[in-house]
Each structure stands twice: as C-alpha cells, then as structure tokens.
C-alpha cells in the first residue's frame, strides 16, 4: 500500500530565477557563484516546507519562521554600532545592502587574516555549499539561492590569532539572509564570535554558516543569539573537521520570539574532536527550538555536548540532539547531555536526545533531565542565612556557570548582563 503524498503547504514565499539573477548581478558576483545560487534555487523549488510529521519540526511551525517576501522587501541596512576592536583580533559588521565593514588589528593583518564580501571572493564558489548543501533542507536551500549578506573569512595555515574575530550580524526589518563561509587553515588557531543581534517583530532571519577546519586546526566558535523581541529566525551552522582538528562551539541563545537553530559538526578525519556547550534562556512567550548534531564519519573521533535550558514565564523550548556514528567510525567516543530547568509553572520543555550508532567499537552515552529548582539546595542555602531570592539566583547561576566560563572574554560581559537581568526578573515571586 503506497503512502499518500503530503500536499505542499501553500504558505511558501515566491522566489524566481529572475529575482535571483537580479540579486547576483546587483552584488557583482562571478558566474560560478550565480551557478551555485541557481542550483540551490532548483533544489528549493523541489523542496516542500518541512512537514511537521518530521520529528525535527514537531515542535515548531516552519511557516512562522518565513517572511512573506524574501527578496525586494528588505528594509534599509540595519543601523548598528561597530563594536570595539578586540585586542589582537578583528571586528566585522555584516549587513545586506552594504559591503561588510571590517576592522583588523595589526596582529590580524600581519598574520594574513583574509576577510572579504562573499560575493567578491573569486574562489568561494568551489567551497560554498560543501558543508551545508542546498539539499540540507528548506531553509538552507532558500539561503543558498537568496543570501544577500555574505562573508568569506580565511585564517591561513599555521596562523595563530590571539584575539577573537567578532562578526556582528544585525537583523534588518523584513528578511535578512546572511551567509558565512569560514575556513581555518591547517594547524591554525582562531576564535570566531558570531553574533546575531537587533531586529523587531518585522524581522525574519535565515542564516547559514559553514566552517571548515583544516588538519590539526583549533577553532573556537561562539554563537551568540541576542535578537530583539519579535524576531523570527532560523540559524544553521555546520563545521567540517579534518584530521586532528579540534572545535569548541559555545552557544548562547536568549533573544527573538520564534527561534530555530540547527547546529552541528561533522567529524570527517581521524582524531577530530568537537565539543559543544551552550545554554538557552527563555522568558515571556519565547519559542526556542534547538537541534544539535554530531556526525562521526571517521574513526578515533571524540565529541561531547552539554546543552542547558532555563525557562521562565510562558517560554517553550524544544531540544533535539543526534549523535550519529557511521560504520567506518570505529574507536569513537561521543557524549551528550541536556539539562532543563523549569522556573515557572507555565513554561514547557521538550527534549529528544537521539543516538544512531552503526558500528560496535564505540563508547557513547547521553542523558537528559527536566526539573524545577532543587528545593533541597534552596533549603540548604536558606539554612545558611541566605535569603530565598538570592539562593535561587545562586543556583541558577551555578547551573549556567560552567557554560558561561567558556564564553570568550570579548562578549562575556554582555552575556553576563543579560543573564543577571533575566535572573532578577525571575526573582521576587515571578513564578
């Protein structure tokens, strides 16, 4: 008996070839990049809006993350302050409708850090879409065809950058479609801070970041999502790790109103290591949906995920995580942990930590918990004379502390500030 085909939902934004060609021409791209866009457009045309039967979409309505118009409706380039240049690093402001604003420290310049608008990087077409192809999904195909704020970043082999590379991506009114291509050369070391900020209830973001880490490279990737209230956004990041490459991903997500993220790393060479730590803070009526993937394609690889969620108000979080270990990836270790802290009676947390293991030579564990504040801990602190409010604040800080300590210095103060502010709201009978 054949399965009936699910009808393609109607709420699908229009994107045609003429518009894509026009965009490409406006950006001054070469023929190869235009070809990539048209390929993605063909995939997009054949891709239905995700069916909510698919478990990764069980908790979020894809149509609510989509603007009615993808191209042509974008407002003027979002005004944003260029953050301070971190010592020994670089700062980049990435907006649609304007070339990326770049400031490099002397050290970064000397080391040969290459930063360019993606549309003007002559070699980009060969690598674009190799880590996140258009076939990845609906939003990735959309991005591949219609990205309008592109950045190409390359850290040359063996270079060691002391300061972070800070990339600020403000959300514009209407639709923002950023695309980041990051390459870290063999044995190079770098910290990349990707910060999605700003925006209002009229903002829709569909972003894709591809990271390639060469053999033995050390990469720290901080993803900070601090959108304004009302923003709807879909972020996809994938890192492909070559032999002995080492990636640390730090995710902090607390902004926006409807947020979905698809984060992951592909361990594609023997000896590769990937660690992902992160936390989500949800308040009011925020809808937060985060997905992590560690895909082990090579042997002797290692990965770990420590993902935390703390919710207040009517916030809702869904976390889905997958560890996938291929047949060829023997002698592999993979760990995954998801902890959810429920700080109000009206919030809701769903968690699906998954394992798909296709070979036997592995060590693999995962764990997930959902619980309110531990009353015993509160009681213990109160018994030491600490007022209840302060005790609660201490416990939540403790819950987040391990991840907070991993946040790069350049953005840590602003992250701590938000955490403190949220905690003070939570205090004083906000439950």
């Amino acid at each position: 008996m054949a399965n009936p085909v699910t009808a393609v939902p109607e709420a699908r934004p229009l994107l045609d070839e003429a518009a894509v060609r026009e965009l490409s021409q406006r950006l001054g791209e070469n023929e190869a990049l235009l070809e990539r866009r048209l390929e993605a457009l063909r995939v997009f045309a054949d891709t239905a809006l995700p069916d909510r039967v698919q478990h990764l979409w069980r908790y979020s309505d894809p149509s609510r993350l989509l603007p009615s118009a993808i191209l042509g409706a974008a407002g003027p380039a979002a005004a944003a302050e260029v953050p301070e240049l971190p010592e020994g690093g670089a700062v980049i402001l990435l907006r649609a409708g304007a070339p990326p604003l770049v400031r490099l420290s002397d050290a970064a310049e000397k080391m040969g850090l290459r930063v360019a608008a993606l549309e003007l990087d002559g070699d980009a077409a060969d690598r674009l879409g190799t880590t996140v192809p258009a076939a990845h999904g609906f939003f990735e195909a959309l991005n591949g065809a219609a990205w309008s704020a592109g950045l190409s970043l390359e850290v040359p082999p063996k270079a060691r950058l002391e300061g972070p590379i800070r990339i600020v991506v403000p959300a514009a009114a209407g639709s923002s479609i950023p695309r980041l291509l990051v390459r870290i050369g063999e044995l190079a070391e770098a910290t990349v801070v990707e910060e999605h900020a700003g925006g209002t209830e009229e903002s829709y973001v569909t972003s894709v970041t591809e990271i390639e880490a060469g053999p033995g490279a050390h990469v720290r990737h901080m993803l900070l999502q601090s959108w304004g209230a009302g923003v709807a956004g879909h972020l996809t990041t994938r890192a492909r790790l070559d032999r002995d490459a080492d990636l640390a991903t730090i995710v902090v997500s607390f902004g926006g109103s409807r947020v979905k993220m698809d984060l992951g790393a592909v361990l594609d060479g023997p000896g590769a290591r990937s660690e992902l730590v992160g936390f989500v803070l949800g308040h009011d009526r925020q809808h937060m949906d985060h997905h992590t993937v560690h895909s082990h394609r090579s042997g002797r690889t290692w990965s770990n995920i420590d993902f935390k969620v703390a919710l207040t108000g009517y916030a809702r979080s869904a976390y889905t995580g997958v560890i996938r270990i291929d047949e060829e990836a023997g002698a592999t270790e993979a760990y995954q942990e998801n902890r959810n802290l429920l700080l109000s009676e009206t919030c809701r947390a769903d968690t699906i930590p998954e394992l798909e293991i296709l070979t036997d030579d592995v060590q693999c564990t995962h764990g997930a918990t959902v619980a309110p504040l531990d009353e015993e801990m509160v009681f213990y602190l109160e018994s030491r004379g600490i007022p209840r409010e302060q005790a609660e604040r201490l416990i939540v800080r403790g819950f987040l502390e391990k991840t907070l300590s991993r946040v790069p210095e350049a953005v840590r103060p602003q992250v701590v500030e938000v955490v403190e502010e949220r905690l003070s709201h939570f205090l004083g009978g906000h439950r």
Partner: protein
Amino acid sequence: MRATDREIESLNQDYLEKYGFHDAEEYLLKAPRGLNHEVVEMISRYKNEPEWMREFRHRSLDIFLSKPMPKWGDQEALGEIDFDNIYYYLKPKGQQTKDWNEVPEKIKQTFDRLGIPEAERKFLAGVTAQYESEVVYHSIRGDLEKMGVIFCDMDTGLREHEEIVKKYFGTVIPPADNKFSALNSATWSGGSFIYVPPNTKVDIPLQAYFRINAENMGQFERTLIIADEGASVHYIEGCTAPVYSTDSLHAAVVELIALKGAHIRYSTIQNWSTNVFNLVTKRAKAYEDAVVEWVDGNLGSKLTMKYPAILLVGERAHGEVLSVAFAGSGQHQDAGAKMIHAAPNTTSRIISKSISKGTGRSSYRGLVKMTKGAVNCKTHVECDALLIGERSRSDTYPTMEIAEDDVSVEHEARVSKLADEQIFYLQSRGISEDQARLMIVNGFIEPFVRELPMEYAVELNRLIELEMEGSVG
C-alpha cells in the same frame, strides 16, 4: 572471509534445527486472502457476535483503509507488508476443549515441543494455548473459578461476559489510534480475556502460549485484562513460531485496565521467526494508586514495532516498563515505551536493554509526557545498548515532553561493545571466549531476567545461548 562475516552469514540459517518447527496445516475454515468488508462480515457472522461488535469491526476497517502507513520507523521493512496477500481468519480443526486428552494430536506435538505440559505440571494456573486464530485448549484451575476470576479467550469472553467486555473493549486503544490497531479492531480473533474481581489476589501467574502455524497468515489477537479495585494479577505470554518462506504479519492489541489500587504485571517473551512483522499496540490505564508493569522480551521477528504504554490517570499511580531486545542479523527490533503522566504524584521507570549482533539493528523509541497539572511526578529512563559486530546498529530516540515544572525527569543511555578487557579477564580465569561472551551478555540482561518466573528465565537464557553460538569474532 573473516570469522565475523562467516558468523553473520550463517546466523539464523539453522533456525529450523534450533527452535523452529512446522506442522502441516489443518483448518475448518480459511477466509480468502486480503481484507474487505465481506471478510470482516464473515468473521463476525461466523463468530455469531453481537451487533455492536459487528459494527465496531466495520467501523474499524474503514479507519484502517483511510489511515496512511506510519511515516516514521523502518520505512523499508514496513513497505514490504502486502496487506492483500494475508489470510485474516483461520478456524482450526477441533472444538474448544478443557481436557488435555481431547486436544488434537498434531497440536499436542507442537505444545510438547514448547514444553507446555511440563510447565503446567509445575505451578501454572491455566493454559490458554492459542493455535491459529482460535483457542483450542483451555483450562482454568478450580480455585481461580471459585475466586470469581475470569480467564478465557477473548471470543468466549465476549460470548459469556458481554457486559464487561462492552464496557472496556477499545477504551484504552481506540481503533483510530493507529493503522495497526484499526486493523486488529476489524479482524481480531482470539487473545485472552481476564477479569479479576475487587480485592482478589491471583498468586500464580496466568499464562497463554501463542503460536502461528500457517504461511501468510495474520494473527490478530486481542487481549483485555481488567483488575478491579485492589486486585492483582500477573499474566504471562510467550511466543515461538516456526519457519516460513514468506512474510507473516502479527498485529495484536493488548489493553490493560488497573482500577484503583490494582496491580497488573504483563510479561512477554517473543521469539518470532525472522520473517514475521510484529506490530503490536500495548497500552495500560492505571487509576489511583494502581501499579502496572510491562516486562517485555523481544528476540525474533524481522521487524518488531512495539511500545508498551501506560497512562497514569489516577493519583499516585506507578508504571514500569522493563524490556530486552535482541536483534540478530537482518532483524530490526524497534521497541520502546511510553509513559503519560496525567495525574499528580505519579511515578514511572523505564529500563531498556538492547543487543545488536551481526547486521542486527535495535532501536529504542520512547515517550515520557507530563501534562499540565501532573505535579510532583517522577520518571527515570535508562537505555543500555550492547553492540556485537562492527556492522551492528543501535538507535535511541527518546522524547520527553514536559508541561509542568514541579516534576523530575531523568533519562540516560549508554551504548558500548562487548569489552575486550572483560573477555580477557574471564579468559585468564580459564573460561573460553565463547563462554565469556555469553556470560557478559547474560550479565547485561540479568536485571530483566530476574524479573521473570524461573522457567521463563531458563528459557530466555537458553535462547540467548543459541543466538550467541559461534559469535567469536
């Protein structure tokens, strides 16, 4: 060819000698292949069922025909099911009997090989031996009858205790629950019906053996167990099946109802031959202070999809699922558990152990749900997987949906292979590698085995031993 490859290829080729056997078929009535309203009408007419059941079957058939196949799970294997090539009803020769001597010789031989008379001599209460779609042998010990316990096959239950059946039938698993429960609701035949009156404790486990013995025959048992307030009962179901050349479908529906303060334990060991699709819906409803336990072992079949569920609808109800799955080469054990906490102070525990060997694949698919208002609930989920052979596969798909803050939810999973150092240690004590592997596997499933009655534990250990034979890689 490497030793592991040889082992993978030879696995289950000797199923016949190991535990498969096949007797010639003898039937009084065999419905034509395929399913339509005429077949359903025929089944209902033949069984002389009341009007409401006839309508229930027809309604369920409409639901079955309108529902799509599940879009999740092992799509490839599910796609192989050909609903039009299945016999939906067979009536075996011989009338229902209460005396062992009256059971036809052929069927007796089958049961002899399953060891039923042995078991009965020991301490079994009653044997409802399901041969084909109808119960042929059935005995209830006198003291059970004196206690007012009803233990019979589902067809008899419907005939003799219609008011109880009508009250509970299809209330825990409605036909529209899923495609296979709709199929069962339309075509069910046989299965067990148990009613335990208030404050009655059945001290000895009630057992039924199930068998399938016809090629291309679907088996659609329907089991309904009701433990009235303060009652307790342990029901055991065990299956083995002979070897077939073409696929066979098994889609049972099992409903358990534990009223206030009642206790039901339902134990299963299934060892279908590796061409059987075992797509079973099992669900229990636990009222105030009730306890329901599913103890579930899955060894055979080509594809098993089975997620015993417990709806904790009364305060302080407790649910447990304890399961073991063994997937040999070519098999997919897609099993799991569901716990729905719909009342305050309810607690649950899920322990799942799976072993994948050769090219076998085992999946844990589970759901823990805490609804709004289900305060002060606790659940603990533990999944352990053991992988034997580099082409084996293990998946874990747990889902936790939590809409209440005053709860505690814990989930853990571990996946590992047979540890070389453990084998080495045992070998250094003079134990052969084969023996060492077997000991480790038996140790791995020990928490499950110790929950089984003794003769089942012995049988399970023997089955594991057969599965592990020649597994030195």
